[in-house]
């Protein structure tokens, strides 16, 4: 496979830098500083030390025996839910916050959907003594309220966004609008492999720690590589992280799972790679859910972190070249998987991660007898308000 992105930030025909001219010099500065940062042994040592002693890496791979017996599928979980703050999002936030300091920025901003990336960014700001503001759609402020409180405790300003659908896409709009005005002192920590180049690449690289660990760990506990690696896809960062090193391993099937929502009708799901078509939004050319006119379509998912009409450009590329496949998992299937993991393994997963398991559970015949590695991207404490509403407690 070709190395992507190319020097202009394209993954095949996808990607690019579709942002206001005001931000172009900042993107260039980030690109150049990132290049220095990853070749600076001191900076890398600092990041690795934080990942180990602060974030709690490496995270284990756990063989979920009870669930495996029940499904007749060997289920292995990469436990990103055990990372400090409760999700893979900290892997990226730590890397980018250090990069921001490296560039001399004093203020961090971020968008958040589920609130996990917001909490991760707020955590880094507290740790590194930086000012921080997180933009969050009003709908998400309500349905992920525990994370809003955590961000506030950590000293971050949480700004609810009332425009559009009041969800993740609108939070990204608001963060970009802030950044155009504050770019001189502010770094925008994008939380997924989306946005303009070099963000999709940087976020993927910071998240690839997941598969750097997983490849040898899996060999050690299972004696061979998995048949399939499965991850949920919102913007696509936890999937990009666990796919990265497995893309170099022959014979491992990579499966991204999008939010199938209530149905496959327009507006009822967030499955852009399944039902969308290419277009340009939030800085890159990628698959999106859009109207004939080219406006973003309303989307839905029970999970705030997957409720987004676009996807990182690398996933569009992987789909088109056939290096990964993208499936869906409905709200119902995700909630079933959520409950199953609680009851049978004593693990309360994030609703996002529940989509990866939900897809496998709903198609257990297809995966029968296979070794399946699922990225358990986060834990589900944040989801209590939704769970109370959906399942009643």
């Amino acid at each position, binding site marked *: 496979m070709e190395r992507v992105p190319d020097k*202009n930030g394209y993954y095949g025909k996808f990607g*690019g*830098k*579709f*942002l*206001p*001219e*005001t*931000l*172009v*010099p*900042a993107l260039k500065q980030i690109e150049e500083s990132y290049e220095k940062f990853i070749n600076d042994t001191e900076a890398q040592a600092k990041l690795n030390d934080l990942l180990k002693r602060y974030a709690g890496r490496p995270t284990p791979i756990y063989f979920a025996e009870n669930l495996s017996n029940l499904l007749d599928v060997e289920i292995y979980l990469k436990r990103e839910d055990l990372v400090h703050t409760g999700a893979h999002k900290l892997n990226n936030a730590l890397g980018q916050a250090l990069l921001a300091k490296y560039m001399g920025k004093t203020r961090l901003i971020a968008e958040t959907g589920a609130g996990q990336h917001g909490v991760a960014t707020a955590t880094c700001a507290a740790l590194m003594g930086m000012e921080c503001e997180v933009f969050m759609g009003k709908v998400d402020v309500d349905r992920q309220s525990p994370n809003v409180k955590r961000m506030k405790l950590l000293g971050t300003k949480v700004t609810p966004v009332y*425009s*559009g659908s009041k969800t993740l*896409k*609108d939070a990204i*709009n608001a963060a*970009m*609008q802030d950044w*155009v*005005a*504050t*770019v*001189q002192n502010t770094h925008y920590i994008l939380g997924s492999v989306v946005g303009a180049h070099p963000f999709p690449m940087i976020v993927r690289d910071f998240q690839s720690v997941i598969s750097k660990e997983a490849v040898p760990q899996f060999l050690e506990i299972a004696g061979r590589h998995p048949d399939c690696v499965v991850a949920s896809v919102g913007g696509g960062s936890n999937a990009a992280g666990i796919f990265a090193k497995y893309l170099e391993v022959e014979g491992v099937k990579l499966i991204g799972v999008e939010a199938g929502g209530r149905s496959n009708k327009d507006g009822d799901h967030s499955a852009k790679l399944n039902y969308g078509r290419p*277009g*340009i*939004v*939030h*800085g890159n*050319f990628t698959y*999106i859910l*859009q109207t*004939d*006119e*080219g*406006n*973003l379509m309303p989307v839905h998912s029970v999970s705030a972190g997957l409720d987004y009409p676009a996807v990182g450009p690398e996933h569009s590329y992987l789909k088109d070249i056939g290096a990964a496949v993208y499936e869906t998992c409905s709200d119902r299937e995700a909630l079933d998987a959520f409950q199953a993991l609680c009851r049978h393994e004593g693990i309360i997963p994030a609703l996002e991660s529940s989509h990866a398991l939900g897809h496998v559970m709903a198609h257990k015949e297809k995966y029968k007898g296979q070794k399946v590695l699922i990225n358990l991207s986060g834990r589900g404490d944040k989801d209590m308000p939704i769970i109370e509403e959906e399942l009643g407690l």
Partner: protein
Amino acid sequence: MTQYNGFYLMGNYPDRDTFIEAAAQGLQHFDFLEVGIPFSDPIADGTAIAEAAQKALDSGVNLAGILESIKAVRERVSPEKDIYLMTYANIIFNHEETLKSEEFKKLNVKGLIVPDVPSSEDFFFTGENALDGLEIITFLTPETEDETIKKASGRSNSFIYFISTRGITGGSMKLDNDTMAKIDLAKSSSTCPVVLGFGIRDSDSAKTALEHCDGFIMGTVLIQKLNDKGLDGFKKFTDELFGELG
């Protein structure tokens, strides 16, 4: 030097007739009109324009309808007046066929103003699938490096859109010394007008813009006039503005 001043209206907003009337009236004073095509996620726009876009979308405004209105505007104004479309990359991407059509060429639209297509990416719409004859207007900003300013200025034909400040539409104008130096560089390296936009909302800011640039662009304040005071308020405001500018 002759001035090149422009104004922005959201296409068919607040309704078709008001838009056409405001466009025709405005072009009695201004040299060019930027017609906004609403997009659901306008990352470069402040509240006033973003809300206008949302309302327009909610009432079913689309490119086809706006082009009909531009035809009506063309019939009423002098052919020297220029018309540009202002929208986001995905709207352009979804309407490439329309923008290449003979019908469209008859409207004599001079160029596209696309805030999420920086000059590094304009190859996406030029090169092979050129929207022939349609120039993508170059933006320069207080952040643009001098080398880029020189290169971009040399390539532009219609005008250069210099953004007065770091930020989105609807803010206030702040011209710092660095920015003024960049504007001077753009002017000395280009043969087309350098026009200042963002934050110009009254005769004072327009005068300041004209001290440094070849023209100014007004947007947000005109949308607000239409919202608050209707066509009469719009006309009164533009008449007075150009009265004061002399």
